[in-house]
């Protein structure tokens, strides 16, 4: 029996799900030979509540979403957080820096009373999450890697070393040398340092490595005359560094 797989979306841009379809025809057919997709609202009409593996995308930002994700947890044997919003809260957490009443007022003005929102949070703030496909967006190859591991009943092999390792292997010049700041030293690798290779810097979208070398990040900041506060402010985007760099 092929395992039944479902995809669910919460608050987010749905880019993770869309990238899941970025496969060559042969790879997609191979994948569908291994799993039975029974629920994927974005691309299919059929919906079934009988599934073993649930991929959840997006962060949790309403009371209704809390109830919905709890039901998914009750049904699924395995829950996988897909992407940064589900995994670490993602960009949605940026609104948490103002009180929710103010956020509603800024956006809806006098009509704020019609709307409701709670501070954004990742899936594992509400339910137990078994695995994570990291990144904003995750790479399709990492998603396929996780699905393959689940089919083989193995733990997905996701790097637990910093982006700097992959960045060096990619032959990039360190962005600190260019006068920019970067979260590569403490962020979990697995992205092949795509942002730095593309001319930018690491925003920390894959979350921290398990035991980040905070001293090393501080040393780098000192070396380039930067303060932790500057980095914390700049990298609020994925809310990953505020706790470690304090």
């Amino acid at each position, binding site marked *: 029996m092929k395992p039944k797989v479902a995809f669910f979306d919460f608050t987010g*841009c749905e880019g993770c799900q869309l990238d899941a379809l970025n496969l060559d025809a042969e790879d997609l057919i191979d994948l569908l030979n291994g799993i039975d997709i029974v629920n994927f609202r974005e691309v299919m009409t059929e919906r079934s509540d009988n599934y073993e593996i649930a991929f959840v995308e997006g962060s949790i930002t309403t009371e209704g979403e809390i109830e919905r994700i709890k039901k998914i947890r009750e049904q699924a044997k395995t829950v996988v957080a897909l992407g940064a919003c589900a995994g670490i809260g993602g960009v949605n957490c940026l609104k948490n820096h103002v009180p929710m009443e103010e956020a509603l007022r800024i*956006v809806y003005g006098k009509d704020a009373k019609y709307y409701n929102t709670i501070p954004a949070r990742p899936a594992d703030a509400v339910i137990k999450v078994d695995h994570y496909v990291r990144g904003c967006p995750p790479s399709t190859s990492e998603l396929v890697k996780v699905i393959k591991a689940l089919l083989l009943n193995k733990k997905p092999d996701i790097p637990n070393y910093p982006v700097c390792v992959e960045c060096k292997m990619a032959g990039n010049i360190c962005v600190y040398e260019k006068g920019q700041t970067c979260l590569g030293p403490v962020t979990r690798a697995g992205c092949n340092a795509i942002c730095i290779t593309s001319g930018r810097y690491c925003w920390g979208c894959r979350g921290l490595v398990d035991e980040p070398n905070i001293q090393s990040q501080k040393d780098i900041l000192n070396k380039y005359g930067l303060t932790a506060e500057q980095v914390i402010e700049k990298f609020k985007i994925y809310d990953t560094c505020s706790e470690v760099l304090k």
Partner: protein
Amino acid sequence: MTQVNINVHHLTRVEGHGNIVLNVNEGKIEELKWIVSESPRFFEVMMRDRYYEDVNHIASRICGICSISHSTVSLQATEKAFGVKPSEQTILLRKLLFNAEVIESHILHIMFLAAPDFLGVGSVFPLINTHKDIVVMSLRLKRLSYNLAEALAGRKTHPLSCIVGGFAKLPQYSELEDLRKRLEDALIDLATIVDLFKTLKIPDFQRETEYIALKDENEYAFISGQIASSDTGLTPVENYLKVTNEFCVPQSTAKYTKNARDSYMVGALARFNINHEQLLPKAKNAAAELGLVAPNINPFMITVAQLIEVIHVVEQSIQIIDRLFVTGIKEEPHQVNPKRGRGIASVEAPRGILFHDYTYGEGGILKEANCIIPTNQNHNNIQKDFEALVPIILQQPEDEIRHTMEMLVRAYDPCISCSAHMLRVSFK
């Protein structure tokens, strides 16, 4: 049907969350609503107080499917606020990047979201067995668009290399040579898809509305031009609030818009109706073959207009690559001096006209943002279409009524995740 109770919760094969409600009692329509139920996102709050370099990074996350549109319009709004003028090379590369998104987004909608309705299945997955050639072709076109975006910006979803004032990394000639060849091949695949579309029965429903799109005198506009309305003519982008006139409705987390009439349409059909004369030759021929003639007032033809646009942007991408080979691709200095001020920009996202309006304070920090997203501008038009369509089809069985209503919403290719939000109407 004298009794109908349709309640489609979280309509499938659309991006984001929307519901359809229809209640008919003794032949009388008691309730008929298109309801947007997406959780609000609060991007205007999320972008506030961010440094300009990171603003397009966040703006891109408004939508996974049109992240290049949001990123591009965000860069343009910041550039206008700072008085930065992008070079010819930057504009060419941005157009090419933008075209990658138009190809991907339209093909996803045409072949994966809309086509299953015409072919009588619930998703693309069964088509792998019945229409394998077409599915392979669609995935090939999608892959081409991803690779095009990767060459220009590192990746398609949430592009990286496009920055304020230019590009942080430039594409290689060898990549562009390979892509040019694959774009030529794509025209052959697209001709096959045009042939498929000739065999599909598109519902015949007519309702005239106001059509709004960007217009540029030099070309079929995607990232430049003024606001053009089929009713009220040209308006400078800076005056967008006079056209969008947003208002809140209790049934929806998204704001609605109207201009000259009760509602207006944006997106591929609106662009076609306004800019059809500027289509490139192969796109023009395909429109003629598929019987798409401007002005077309059948919303189900949006999908056909998207197919025409894919052909157009593939032709245009080949022209742009040829131009880049002539001009050469050079490293350019992009000196950006942030200053206080307001910048308003607009692009034609795959689903229609999109506005970002930024006000910067000292030190390149964004103080206020307003984003008006295409799907928001279509919600009201979908509602008005429902009100015209349902009485005509009310004699059909309930399942067929539901299916036709779902198809109508899908034709608009709504992108509800980004539509659901926010928006302040006036500035402090």
